[in-house]
């Protein structure tokens, strides 16, 4: 079981006189758990998610983010004793991804000219390679001979990487069925011209393919109609139920929580998690609004 542990995280915008955004965030998310992170605009939710993934626009001024791994987190892959706790702040974004961190973006990038299939297979193989490198050190120089392309260059070299084209196609189809996504997505360019809903579905699809230990989903529910919300929710539940992914779901609304029931709800205010509870906290918040939280917190203080 993997645990993401955020301790006293302070961060600011990484520029001269950059604004302080996080003022001591504490959070712990374990595999298999679903957490909802709620809070008003500007409270630091998205910033928290980006810093977990390693966005260069923020500078951490205090605190830490640790990832604890256990045997079995990467299937049969043995995890050496000295490689079970990682300080994420010392790692590149792709290294964090390799260790099982996934960020579902609120506004996913559109990459023209790169097909979904090519992108996802490249990402999956890059992740598996990087993971081995992190756990066991540098690759022993296995110079691959120059193998030719049997498929379109847009799909990459057949023999390139751990997961071959055929195997990958099968995997992709499975996951797309699960999310009720049309097969034609596979040949479309990554998010290019996707509707808002399609982009969000695609974020969940990517999580399903990459099988992270912890997935942080930043406003995955914004801009979704009710049908799409249900598809996406089904996908998120499947991440937890079938892959044991721990979910940290950032949302403004109670609505998605009806479909993806959280084990824990946290409320952020002014760069801190000020209140945590179970699913009932979300309903209470829905009734009483953030002012209620604010009053409670500042009264207590």
């Amino acid at each position, binding site marked *: 079981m993997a645990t993401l542990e955020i301790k006293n995280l302070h961060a600011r915008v990484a520029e001269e006189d950059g604004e302080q955004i996080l003022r001591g965030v504490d959070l712990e998310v374990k595999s298999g758990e679903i957490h909802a992170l709620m809070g008003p605009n500007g409270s630091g939710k998205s910033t928290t998610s980006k810093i977990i*993934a390693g966005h260069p626009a923020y500078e951490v001024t205090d605190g830490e983010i640790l990832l604890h791994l256990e045997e079995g987190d990467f299937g049969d892959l043995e995890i050496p004793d000295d490689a079970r706790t990682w300080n994420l702040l010392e790692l590149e974004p*792709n290294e*964090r991804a390799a260790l099982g961190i996934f960020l579902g973006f609120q506004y996913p990038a559109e990459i*023209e000219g*790169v097909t979904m299939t090519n992108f996802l297979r490249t990402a999956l193989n890059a992740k598996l390679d990087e993971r081995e490198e992190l756990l066991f050190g540098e690759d022993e120089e296995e110079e691959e001979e120059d193998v030719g392309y049997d498929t379109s260059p847009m799909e990459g070299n057949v023999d390139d990487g751990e997961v071959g084209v055929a195997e990958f196609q099968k995997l992709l189809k499975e996951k797309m069925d699960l999310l009720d996504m049309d097969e034609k997505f596979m040949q479309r360019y990554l998010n290019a011209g996707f509707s808002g809903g399609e982009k969000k579905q695609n974020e969940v699809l990517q999580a399903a393919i990459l099988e992270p230990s912890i997935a942080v989903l930043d406003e995955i529910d914004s801009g979704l109609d009710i049908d799409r919300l249900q598809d996406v929710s089904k996908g998120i539940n499947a991440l937890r139920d079938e892959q044991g992914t721990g979910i940290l779901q950032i949302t403004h609304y109670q609505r998605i929580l009806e479909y993806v029931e959280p084990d824990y709800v946290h409320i952020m205010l002014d760069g801190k998690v000020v209140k945590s509870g179970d699913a009932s906290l979300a309903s209470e918040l829905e009734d009483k609004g953030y002012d209620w939280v604010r009053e409670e917190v500042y009264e207590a203080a």
Partner: protein
Amino acid sequence: MSSDQDHLKETDTEARFEFKKEQKAAFAAEKGLNEETIRVISEDKDEPEWMLERRLRALKQYQKMPMPTDWPGQPDLSEVDVDEIVPYIRPDVEVRGGVDDWRDLPDDIKDTFDKLGIPEAEKNALSGVGAQYESEVVYQNMQERWEEKGVVFMNMDQAVQEHEDIVKEYFMTKCVPPSDNKFAALHGAIWSGGSFVYVPEDTTVDMPVQAYFRMNSEGMGQFEHTLIVAEKGSEVHYIEGCSAPKYSAFNLHSGGVEVFVGEDAHVQYSTVQNWSKNTYNLNTKRAIVEKNGRMEWISGSMGSKATMLYPASILKGRGASDNHITIAFAGEGQNIDTGAKVYHNAPDTKSTIESKSISKDGGRTNYRGLVHIANGATNSSTAVECDALMFDNESTSDTMPYMEINESTVDVAHEATVGKIGDEDIFYLQSRGLDDDDAKQMIVSGFIEPITEELPIEYAVELNRLVELEMEGSLG
């Protein structure tokens, strides 16, 4: 408007690209390149008298014309070393575009060859070793099939001897006259090697004609001339150079390409060139397209210190069409100035131009294009799209899409984007497991994908790998 096109002049609209009458001091000492040298070349090639005369006429024009110096943002040509050309063109020196021995190639070039997996055959060809190798056999087989159909594909020098009538009619007469520009004139004087392709009426050459297959026979010169004549209703795809990164110790390449697209004919000309970084690559390429004919230019310009290349189509007949796809890549110290020219000289003509450029480490790319729609070219349409991608703040890119529209019933569309590679895009890919380099590479390969999808698969793969190689190191 009547269909009478007599008043439509053929190529009088070069004003934008015309060279200024100004003599550069660097060109004062041209004693090496003189009439005597040209006579010796021509004699050595055993050329007919008319070819010698054309060479001499071209030489005179070259000597008269000034260097281009005043185009906005143009590459600096003041270091173009014409003296280098002189020993090259003298027939008592080995006339080869390449070096004499594979071992003499600089390491970075050799390294590129190895990474690309360029076949041994091609290495041999480049090093001028006339060994027996398989591609020659393949080429021989293809040649037999073509010959049955009356298709001619041979070395330009050989064509002067064996197809004199055709060559005499078309060679630097109506398409690219030596007077076109200084380097066309130079080319006309000292051209050597290249390809001659002739496709008879209603003949389709079903596989691309590739200069690659006969590289050994003429060593792909620095001043090669390509002449393609596609008769009525014919179809041919010519591929040149491609991923063979041409290396030469000489620092000037000035090729000439002339294409004649007959009525209802279709010609595609594809080239991906990767010159050594000391080369000035100054070419003139032009096609004349008759009624309902179609010309497609696909070019990838990599390497070189400076490139100036603007393939042109003259849409002469009603319903003729043109399609340009160009890609340019400029790294440190490089200025890649490319573009396209299209002259709509008849009604119902169509053109599309798509240009992509990438610059990094202070490199510069320019798109310089001209679309001219003549008065009387009714119902013509043109669509120009230029996109530039920059890696950093040190790199530059300029877009200069000139339009001369002298007819009102036309459809003109133009789009241009210039942008820096997006940090958010890179972060997105990184968050999925790609490292910084791979993320950038993926974005670039996506950026040029519209080009690569037009190429035959093996060329697309090699173009992608070339781009990867160009990016290697600079990103690390």
